[in-house]
């Protein structure tokens, strides 16, 4: 660095600085162009096609629809795609999964972080192995049949909890280790039992990391089709499963306007959540990953 400094000392001030100024001026235009090209075109294709009639949408392109019939299409998909049932089905699976995995995961993570025994080191390694290892999708079906849970919401919730428990244990254990034990100790001295300490003292402090985990797990479970195919097949409707049905059913073949109307309906809740809570979501996702 010191050897290179004198040689470079003049140039950056002469050309480097003006380069930087040009770039500062240019950067907003580059950014806008990239957003329009990379995100704008695909999203416009969705909205424009969702607003067309079947004939016009046969070969989806970026042209404006002759007359917008977005709401008619949305209504048709709402009924034919059984969106209300699918929405409820998705909620029925996502909410208990997230609640369960966060509660049980952070309970376990608290102990794993605080009691550094050799057994706990082994349990921690086992507990986070699911982050990396793929779940056994085929045999889980067999197991659920043996348990009498095949095709049920309970079975699906169990499978999702098994898959994402590792993520929660990993994130929360790392976080608990950065919190000093003094507050817990104060509560213990006041005579609080472990459950009260956990609920009243530990859980509130975990809020940032639980927010991160909630966002990630909601995203994965809300959008999952792969595990849902195996576990619930056609027995419970979820939004992605119904999208797949709409898109692959012979009845809907080449009905791009309906496929994209469904995509609009399905993505809208998430996009609204993003627009409203973008700051929280962005900080939530990033705080967990890079420390």
């Amino acid at each position, binding site marked *: 660095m010191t050897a290179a400094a004198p040689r470079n000392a003049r140039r950056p001030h002469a050309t480097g600085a003006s380069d930087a100024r040009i770039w500062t001026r240019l950067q907003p235009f580059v950014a806008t162009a990239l957003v329009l090209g990379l995100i704008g075109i695909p999203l416009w294709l969705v909205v424009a096609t969702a607003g067309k009639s079947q004939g016009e949408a046969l070969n989806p392109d970026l042209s404006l629809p002759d007359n917008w019939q977005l709401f008619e299409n949305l209504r048709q998909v709402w009924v034919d795609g059984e969106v209300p049932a699918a929405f409820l089905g998705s909620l029925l699976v996502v909410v208990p999964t997230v609640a369960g995995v966060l509660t049980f995961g952070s309970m376990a993570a608290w102990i794993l972080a605080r009691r550094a025994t050799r057994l706990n080191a082994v349990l921690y390694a086992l507990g986070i192995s699911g982050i990396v290892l793929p779940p056994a999708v085929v045999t889980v079906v067999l197991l659920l049949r043996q348990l009498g849970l095949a095709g049920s919401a309970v079975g699906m919730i169990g499978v999702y909890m098994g898959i994402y428990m590792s993520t929660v244990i990993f994130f929360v254990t790392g976080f608990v280790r950065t919190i000093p034990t003094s507050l817990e100790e104060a509560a213990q001295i006041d005579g609080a039992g472990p459950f009260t300490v956990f609920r009243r003292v530990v859980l509130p402090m975990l809020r940032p990391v639980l927010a991160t985990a909630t966002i990630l797990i909601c995203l994965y479970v809300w959008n999952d089709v792969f595990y849902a195919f195996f576990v619930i097949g056609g027995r419970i409707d979820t939004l992605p499963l119904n999208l797949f049905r709409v898109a692959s059913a012979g009845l809907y073949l080449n009905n791009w306007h309906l496929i994209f109307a469904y995509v609009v309906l399905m*993505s809208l809740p998430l996009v609204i959540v993003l627009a409203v809570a973008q700051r929280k979501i962005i900080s939530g996702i990033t705080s967990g990953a890079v420390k």
Partner: protein
Amino acid sequence: MPIAEKAPVLERITPPPTPRANTKRSVASTINRRTHPMWFLAPAFAILLVFFFLPTLFNFIYAFTDWSGFKSSINPTGLDNFTQLASDGTLFRAIRITLVYAVLVALFQNLFGFALAVLLERDNRVNRIARIFFLIPVLMSALAVGYIFQALLKPEGSLNGLIGVVLGRTFDYAWLGDTTWTIVVVALIHSWKWMGLSMLIYLAGLKTIPEDILEAARIDGASRWRTFWGIKSPLLAPAVTFNVATALLGSMNGFDIVQATTGGGPARTTEILNIFIYRTFGQGLFAQATAMSLVLFLLVALLAFPVIRTLRKREEIL
């Protein structure tokens, strides 16, 4: 991920239990069986055992049977499933395609995510809005993303239309119908969906670089270019580790995007392991699907640990 490594240091800070700790007050304040009971682990590990470890264990059993949808009995058959899958070339082709797909996704997703992070690093209004737009694909269902690109990339679709306008002649390349290059196109789509997440993580990494180091470099007369490669990029190593590991392992376990764009075609050239598993399961060939599921498990397990270790080691050197 470095969180786990920091832990022992933190634990050392808390005072070790002294002999005097046997007084009533101190007993209450030390961490022990009463204050941190092991039964708190029970629900989480019960769920993991039943819904994760047990099915995985079953993988190692049922991959060596003739379990199928056509008969009720299940008999051990030894290595038959594997020899059959290997003899018709399916096994190694599926492994090869999965690995190629994973490597391409890891490469593209990090390239795009990194470029976007550098481009949108400064905190101003345009950049903040741009970042939100790049997050939309991350939130969308992968299935939906697949359908969007299926429409966009049809031979008579919009992308070819735009290229045709630029070239001034009709252009009708079948992006999703090429037995050599479609795997690359699908990997690009996968990277398109997830590049916003990589971008966020690289942005967070860029923010952790202390201002005084950059200031020192500026005083030493380092150019922007040199500052970038000499200082910023090595300090991004933890973000690279996280992004490469998640992209590699995530895409090896991929399904939705491939299913929605090509369904494994053309001529099964994009049939990654999970597509094969889904297809054979649908045909009632449960044991073969299980065998492939076991192959995926072993593949990920064998790759994950060396990949994460190498990336970590690189972090330490830098």
